[in-house]
């Protein structure tokens, strides 16, 4: 029997087995484990069976806690059940995990191990999560490569059934979960051979059934709980042997042998490292390299971490070992050491004390931390660890891979050390997310992996921005098995798919001497040299690179590929492969054929037209590839642009800029704030220049309505009124015209675009209501190429920023045009181009930002709002602005309520002190402070002045040497005086939070009556994790976990809140009615109680061009799908109907006219028209019913 080789990533490797050996799969999306659930759901939706011939049932729950509960229930009812999770998700499962283990239940949880949020959230990989679950009683089995994930998933399943211990099977998030590698597939026959059906039946038999009833889950008293807890010991004692048995059986079936602890290295090694997970790949490579050069080193790889078999651990070491470094990929602050270190110390000491250790001498053991949050772990670092062990007193509790200049935990290493061999193609590709680079590289790996005898590996590094995202692909191909679990450090091929990256990043940093450099260039081979920055020219000459160019964008336009240059660049890469290794892995002819086969495989489902278009690109690519004759002298007179401008604050210069330059790894510990606190307003220093075209204002026809300013998702369009007489002289091209507002007719009006921050989404053009009468194709704002305008408009932008903001108390902020005269305190976020959420945040920040505290649920808004390097929440000229924090995904409402309660408590304490010392402080001032109404900006401004007076007065009194008690009170009052100015607490999050994982908390907070403002940015899907269904997902839409179209109706969150009677509730859609949106935000904020605003947010996950987002919002409202309404409890006090239906349906706009313009609905029409028709009919019924119920509510007298 031949083994089938497949090229897949770690998540798929786990999911393939899990889907084959389970009956129920309960999941909840969380990075980086989500693809496992999505694949399982997809396979079940397609009817793919498990090894018993039935199709596993996949259920998406409302949270990981819910998934664990469902898993527990399914297990208790005898089903083979699994789940996939990571990080906070695993933490939410812990209570159930204790139960599942305590009840000796067989299951395997597959975990893509990820950092647990501490000073910050991180989606990347380490062992913090699994280590937090190590005390639940679950077994822990570690995989360190894609192949192992596939293998261990099965071994774990076989072992859990026999041992009756539940297992966490884990592998490193991203490094393994997302690495693509060529592996040997396990066939069904092997799976069947590994899984003992008798054990499956026994598991089923233990399930609850009224046909043989039992009771499980008692409450026990002090008399027996302890003893009952000890009953499981024999199972834990037996488990390691059972796991080893499963490993041995697996080896007999596949030839791949694993042990509880595997040793590699010199048989007489003196220095040995111990670790588990993906780092073992790099260690394995380094150990072999060093042993070949005579070093007595070795490594113990931990496979089964729990139950920890001490004897097996100790016996894995060679007897010659003298020094051991135990490496943990986690941090346990305040502990005696990290967990694996402590376990190894215990094992060695215990075995030594018992006389069971094989060592000649008791080895010295040190512990170290590495690789937190996917920090690179390279052969150079590993060599550094071995070198460190050579010292007489090796450093303990060390770190490696960072510079710790605070507590000096880090060890030094020689960065130049490398174990990479030149027979491996090591190719690094810099691309834009939108140009298809990663997709093409994934195809390349499959082409090499599946069409040649070579091994192939792909690792991908993504951006923290969603618009203009940079991707870096690391691809290795070679004749030997590739185990290099670190990014390429010496590339023999570098491709830069975007010419402008040359001015932003050091793309040739990784190129080794003599490497091949492929550049997508608008300039041909004869002229390109003159357009390269000086340092790029220097590197090309110094490293003697072979330099090729292709104008991929021109060619893509020719073959109608638009901005997708992936196929062209991929073809050029294959054409140059010979260059890299001396002989190509595939002949050029075979490569072209293979690329075309891959195109058919990838795209044929999408239609022949797409296949033809890509094939045309392949056919034309090589002819457009040209070698550049590299001059021997550097001629360029320009350099890469600095990451941030010279006027940026010191922290931004020294810290933020390094991250922007993609060299944040070099920042030492001392550079980082210790408690996760960062300055706001730093996006403005990161000039990304990602727009090909930017808006240009036609001042002559503009009616100054402010709509373009309001809808701009990145707040790059601003407008101001200014006094022309007092303004500084403007740059020559700066535009302004007399204001059209009658209240400000003597002022000058200007509308300015930030040219280097725009993403080019064109929403502004779409919303502009003015057409040029002579040429109606032009509006009052039109797109034009950015490059020629960049410098001029950047100067104009800088000048514009010097113009003072209008006094907000003079503006009628309930009008769109006037509200947009205020500066936003949220700008240039990392959201997608055309984002439907950020305009709401921009507006909210304009209206209330100078006194807002924001609790932000994890999700898109916490990522574009708080993902480093830069922060979009900003400050006004007075240094005031939103204070923002993210706690978790599930607790955001409670987090915000905590903020409110803290403020309320301090307001009460401060007012009590004011009353108590009224006479001393001053009756007039205190009364004014206490009875200030603060109903508008003018009144709030007056209160700010009073608080300033109060502080001055308190300083005077404190200097006057009063009693100690008085001094204490006055100091206390001064420290909290700011709360006397009205604060606005905003609880912001998406529908995944509000409708699902956070709903329980949200419900509680809304019911509390506290004055918080909840803004739900409702995209009707989990956008941040890639489009999974939430309870806000509408019927008939396709989403992940609703591949066949969501069959149930969307939850009416608003009506649920209205039922309390004391909550301000509104539904808004700025694209349909911007004035309504502003009114709602103001009413909600003014309401002295909880308010809930449900905001329609168009999203990239809806499957259409975002520039039509506003049109779609309008269609959603006019079709009756998204009625706009307000429920204001204050009106009930006036005996008026609190509910007002604020939108009208247009009979000519049918539901299908709205929905079938979006891919999420059209996909069902295309894939299953019958289901689409059935669900459309039901969805129309939903609209009718809901409209009727709202109409009835509005009609109440």
């Amino acid at each position, binding site marked *: 029997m031949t083994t089938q080789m497949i090229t897949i990533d770690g998540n798929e490797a786990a999911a393939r087995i899990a889907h084959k050996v389970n009956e129920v799969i309960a999941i909840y999306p969380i*990075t*980086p484990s*989500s693809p496992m659930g*999505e694949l399982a*759901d*997809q396979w079940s*939706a*397609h009817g793919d069976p498990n090894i018993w011939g039935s199709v596993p049932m996949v259920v998406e729950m409302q949270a990981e806690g819910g998934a664990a509960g469902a898993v527990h229930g399914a297990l208790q009812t005898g089903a083979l059940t699994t789940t996939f999770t990571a990080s906070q998700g695993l933490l939410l499962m812990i209570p159930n995990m204790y139960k599942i283990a305590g009840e000796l239940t067989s299951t395997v949880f597959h975990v893509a191990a990820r950092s647990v949020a501490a000073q910050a959230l991180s*989606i990347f990989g380490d062992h913090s999560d699994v280590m937090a679950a190590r005390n639940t009683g679950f077994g822990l089995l570690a995989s360190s490569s894609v192949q192992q994930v596939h293998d261990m998933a099965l071994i774990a399943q076989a072992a859990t059934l026999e041992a009756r211990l539940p297992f966490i099977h884990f592998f490193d998030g991203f490094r393994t979960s*997302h690495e693509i590698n060529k592996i040997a597939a396990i066939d069904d026959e092997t799976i069947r051979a590994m899984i003992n059906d008798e054990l499956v039946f026994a598991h089923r038999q233990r399930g609850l059934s009224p046909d043989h009833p039992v009771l499980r889950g008692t409450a026990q008293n002090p008399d027996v709980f302890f003893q009952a807890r000890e009953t499981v010991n024999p199972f834990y004692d037996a488990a390691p042997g059972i796991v080893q048995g499963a490993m041995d059986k697996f080896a007999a079936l596949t030839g791949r042998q694993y042990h509880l602890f595997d040793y590699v290295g010199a048989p007489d090694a003196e220095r040995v490292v111990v670790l588990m997970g993906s780092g073992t790949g790099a260690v394995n490579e380094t150990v072999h390299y060093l042993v070949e050069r005579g070093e007595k080193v070795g490594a113990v790889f931990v496979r089964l971490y729990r139950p920890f078999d001490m004897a097996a651990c100790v016996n894995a070491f060679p007897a010659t070992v003298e020094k051991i470094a135990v490496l943990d990929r986690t941090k346990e602050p305040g502990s005696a050491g990290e967990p694996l270190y402590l376990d190894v110390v215990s094992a060695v000491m215990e075995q030594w004390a018992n006389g069971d250790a094989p060592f000649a001498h008791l080895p010295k053991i040190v512990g170290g931390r590495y690789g937190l949050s996917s920090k690179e772990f390279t052969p150079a670092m590993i060599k550094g660890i071995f070198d460190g062990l050579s010292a007489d007193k090796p450093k303990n509790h060390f770190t490696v891979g960072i510079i710790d200049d605070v507590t000096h935990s880090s060890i030094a290493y020689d960065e130049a050390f490398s174990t990479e061999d030149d027979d491996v193609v090591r190719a690094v590709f810099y691309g834009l*997310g*939108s140009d*298809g680079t*990663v*997709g093409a590289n*994934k195809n390349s790996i499959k082409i090499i992996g599946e069409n040649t005898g070579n091994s192939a590996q792909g690792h*991908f590094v*993504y*951006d923290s*921005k*969603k618009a203009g*995202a940079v*991707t870096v692909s690391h691809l290795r191909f070679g004749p030997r098995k590739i185990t290099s679990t670190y990014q390429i450090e010496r590339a023999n091929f570098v491709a830069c798919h975007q010419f402008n990256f040359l001015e932003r990043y050091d793309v040739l940093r990784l190129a080794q001497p003599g490497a091949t450099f492929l550049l997508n260039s608008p300039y041909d081979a004869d002229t390109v040299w003159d357009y390269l920055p000086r340092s790029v020219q220097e590197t090309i000459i110094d490293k003697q690179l072979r330099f090729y160019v292709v104008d991929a964008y021109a060619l893509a336009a020719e073959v109608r590929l638009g901005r*997708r240059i992936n196929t062209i660049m991929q073809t050029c890469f294959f054409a140059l492969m010979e260059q890299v290794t001396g002989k190509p892995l595939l002949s050029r002819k075979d490569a072209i054929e293979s690329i075309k086969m891959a195109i058919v495989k990838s*795209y044929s*489902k*999408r*239609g*022949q*037209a*797409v296949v033809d*278009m890509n094939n045309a690109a392949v056919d034309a690519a090589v002819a457009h590839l040209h070698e550049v004759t590299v001059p021997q002298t550097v001629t360029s007179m320009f350099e890469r642009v600095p990451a941030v401008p010279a006027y940026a604050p010191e922290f931004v210069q020294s810290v933020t800029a390094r991250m922007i330059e993609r060299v944040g790894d070099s920042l030492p510990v001392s550079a980082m704030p210790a408690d996760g606190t960062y300055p706001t307003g730093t996006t403005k220093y990161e000039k990304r220049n990602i727009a090909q075209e930017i808006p240009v204002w036609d001042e002559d026809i503009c009616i100054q309505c402010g709509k373009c300013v309001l809808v701009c998702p990145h707040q790059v369009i601003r407008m101001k009124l200014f006094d022309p007489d007092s303004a500084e002289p403007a740059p020559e091209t700066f535009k302004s015209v007399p204001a059209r507002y009658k209240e400000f007719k003597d002022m000058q009006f200007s509308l300015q675009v930030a040219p280097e921050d725009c993403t080019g989404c064109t929403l502004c053009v779409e919303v502009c209501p003015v057409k040029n*009468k002579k040429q*109606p194709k032009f509006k009052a704002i039109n797109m034009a190429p950015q490059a020629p305008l960049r410098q001029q408009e950047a100067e104009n932008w800088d000048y514009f920023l010097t113009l003072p903001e209008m006094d907000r108390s003079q503006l009628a902020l309930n009008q769109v045009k006037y509200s947009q005269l205020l500066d936003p305190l949220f700008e240039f976020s990392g959201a*997608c181009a055309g984002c439907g959420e950020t305009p709401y945040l921009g507006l909210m920040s304009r209206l209330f930002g100078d006194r807002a505290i924001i609790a932000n649920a994890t999700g898109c808004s916490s*990522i574009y709002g708080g993902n480093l390097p830069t922060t979009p929440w900003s400050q006004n000229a007075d240094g005031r602005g939103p204070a923002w924090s993210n706690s978790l995904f599930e607790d955001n409402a409670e987090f915000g309520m905590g903020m409110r309660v803290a403020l309320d408590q301090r307001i009460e304490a401060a007012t009590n002190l004011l009353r108590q010392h009224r006479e001393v402080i001053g009756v007039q001032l205190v009364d004014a402070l206490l009875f200030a109404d603060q109903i508008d900006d003018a009144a709030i401004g007056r209160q700010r002045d009073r608080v300033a007076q109060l502080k001055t007065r308190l300083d005077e009194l404190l200097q006057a040497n009063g009693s100690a008690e008085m001094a204490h009170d006055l100091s206390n009052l001064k420290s909290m005086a700011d709360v006397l100015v009205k604060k606005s607490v905003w609880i912001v999050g998406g529908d995944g939070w509000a409708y699902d994982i956070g709903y329980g908390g949200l419900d509680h907070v809304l019911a509390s009556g506290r004055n918080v403002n909840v803004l739900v940015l409702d995209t009707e899907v989990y*956008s*941040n*994790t*890639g*489009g999974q269904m939430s309870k806000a997902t509408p019927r008939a839409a*396709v*989403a*992940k*976990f609703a*591949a066949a179209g969501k069959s149930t109706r969307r939850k009416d969150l608003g009506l649920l809140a209205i039922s309390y009677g004391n909550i301000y509730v509104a539904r808004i859609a700025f694209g349909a009615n911007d004035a309504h949106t502003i009114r709602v935000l103001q009413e909600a904020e003014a309401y002295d109680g909880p308010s809930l605003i449900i905001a329609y947010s168009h999203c*990239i*996950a809806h*499957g*259409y*061009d975002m520039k039509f987002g506003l049109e779609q919002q309008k269609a959603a409202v006019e079709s009756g799908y998204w009625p706009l309404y307000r429920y204001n409890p204050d009106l009930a006090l006036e005996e008026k109907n609190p509910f007002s239906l604020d939108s009208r349906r247009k009979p000519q706009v049918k539901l299908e006219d709205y929905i079938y313009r979006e*891919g*999420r609905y*059209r*996909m069902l*029409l*295309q*894939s*299953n*028209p019958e289901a689409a028709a059935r669900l459309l009919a039901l969805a129309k019924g939903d609209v009718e019913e809901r409209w009727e119920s709202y109409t009835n509510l509005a009609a109440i007298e």
Partner: protein
Amino acid sequence: MDLSTTYLGLELKNPIVPSSSPLTRHISTLREMEDAGAAGVVLYSLFEEEINRASHTLDRYLTEGTELYAEALSYFPEAPSYRDVGPEAYLDHIRKAKSALDMPVIASLNGVSTGGWIRYARQIEEAGADALELNIYYIPTSLEISSAEVEQIYIDVLRDVKSSVSIPVALKMNPYFSAIGTMSRRLVEAGANGLVFFNRFYQPDLDLENLDVTPNLILSNSAEMRLPLRWIALLYGRIDTSLALTTGIHTSEDALKAVAAGADVAMLASELLRNGVYRIQDILGGMKDWLLQNEYESLDQLRGSLSQINVPAPAAFERANYIRLIGSYDPAYF
């Protein structure tokens, strides 16, 4: 009364054939057409451009936003297959129509590429269509393309398709050819089994309120029949191919005129869209009544009787007609 006729070699019980329209999208409506007496039907067109657009759109929304942000490498689950990115839905429709109807089913194709015309024509034949109508909907907007080049496109497409399929092929004529007679002859020489007069190109309207161009569909009226009527009358008996008159047939009188001019079949859509498919019954009834009242033996006796070669005043179809008509509008009288 014998109304039978032969079109594209297909024996039809009468000359009434519903032409390509949205009505032909539903099998139930096709059945009603047959019940009402239709002798055959031309299905709505398979538009290669539409398929391509659907394909590109699907590709775009499955691709957009993917592989750029680590947490969301895609946004949609992949379905096992998609229908409108290929001809499958159309081919299915042919199959269903064939199994539901006794009358011949003529498919209609609008291609954009040589490969597309050939590929889809073959697939249409394989799906069981009795004949194929080529709907070349081409507006030569370029200022560089000559009339000869435009004509050659029609000839080439017809040749390509004819060499790929064995079912009869009709071609829907463009009313804007400079030399319709010559063009008709060339198309027949290139293998056309039938010519359909004429393709009715929709003309967009202007929206003054929104300063925009708007697509606009206006149903035909009987007066529009004059143009095809003239050309069929001119060509009858002079070229060896089936002739179909489409555009402007609303009454039995219109249908009789079409046959009298020389048409083998009278195609209609606007009338059925406006008044329902059972209008076919009325029209057929009216035709029979007229033939009986006027003591015709069969419809065939009428066919071509008022064509140019058979009328007493053949010049009436030529330029004099125009001059006389214009002359009648003497401004002095208004």
